[in-house]
């Protein structure tokens, strides 16, 4: 999970927990997320778009250069169509607009079959 807001990380962690996902690695910015990804193995990457150092788009592009398959879920306030297209072109697999409900996140997780 790459998200610069501690509040949003808490909300995401809570929503993931209620969906049964507890094994979560948290990065506070895009650069940290890239470092974590290069060191570990992940079933899903969730990234905010607007983050310091490296954006979620930078994260998606970097991860796609290393791994063509891992699902990348962009969790962002960037709701315009052209931004969604930009994200998909960068390798993002799916998109969740903030604020989201736990049910909406669960649907995305189901799509990628992410479970504990």
């Amino acid at each position, binding site marked *: 999970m790459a998200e*610069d*807001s*501690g*509040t*949003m990380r*808490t*909300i995401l962690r*809570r929503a993931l927990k209620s969906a049964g996902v507890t094994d979560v690695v948290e990065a506070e910015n895009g650069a940290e997320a890239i470092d974590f990804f290069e060191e570990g193995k992940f079933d899903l990457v969730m990234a905010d778009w*607007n*983050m*310091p150092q490296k954006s979620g788009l930078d994260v998606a592009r970097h991860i796609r250069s290393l791994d063509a398959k891992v699902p990348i879920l962009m969790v*962002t*306030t*960037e*709701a*315009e169509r*052209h931004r969604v297209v930009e994200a998909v072109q960068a390798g993002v697999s799916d998109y969740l607009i*903030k*604020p*989201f*409900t736990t049910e909406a996140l669960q649907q995305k997780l189901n799509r990628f079959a992410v479970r504990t």
Partner: protein
Amino acid sequence: MTATKILEDSLWELVESIWSVLFSQPVIRAHKTDSAQELSGMTACVQISGAFCGVVTLSMTDEYARSAAATMLAKPNGSLTAADIDDAVGEICNILGGGVKSLLPAPSTLSLPHVERKQTTANGNAAGRLTAHISFQCAGEPFEVRVIEEASERGPNETLDS
């Protein structure tokens, strides 16, 4: 109907929707305060740059900021640090700013949120034209949202209402 009125109506729907998801609480549109004044307490702002250049500000009392942060973090009010509250208010403003950006001319980019714990100028320290200003109440506490278009390369008579 002016562009400002359309924006304020859309802003109202946006705030109602965001507050419903984040806080499960209804918001009511409150009597608009004097645009030269701002709620004392906290003001968060995000900058929009591109086809529209300006800022979105969210102002609220310290009491409401603490209450909102407590709800988002699912923590007791008394256990919150100033950093917790700043981050929560900044994130609300970030979500709000993203929504506002989608209502304005594209393409534009959104800055990271900035939070100030003091009474600021009516424009959240940004010089420009007040494009939209709505006052709300949630759980009896007031908060305000402003959209301010910065002075730009548009002509003197060329604004959102043009």
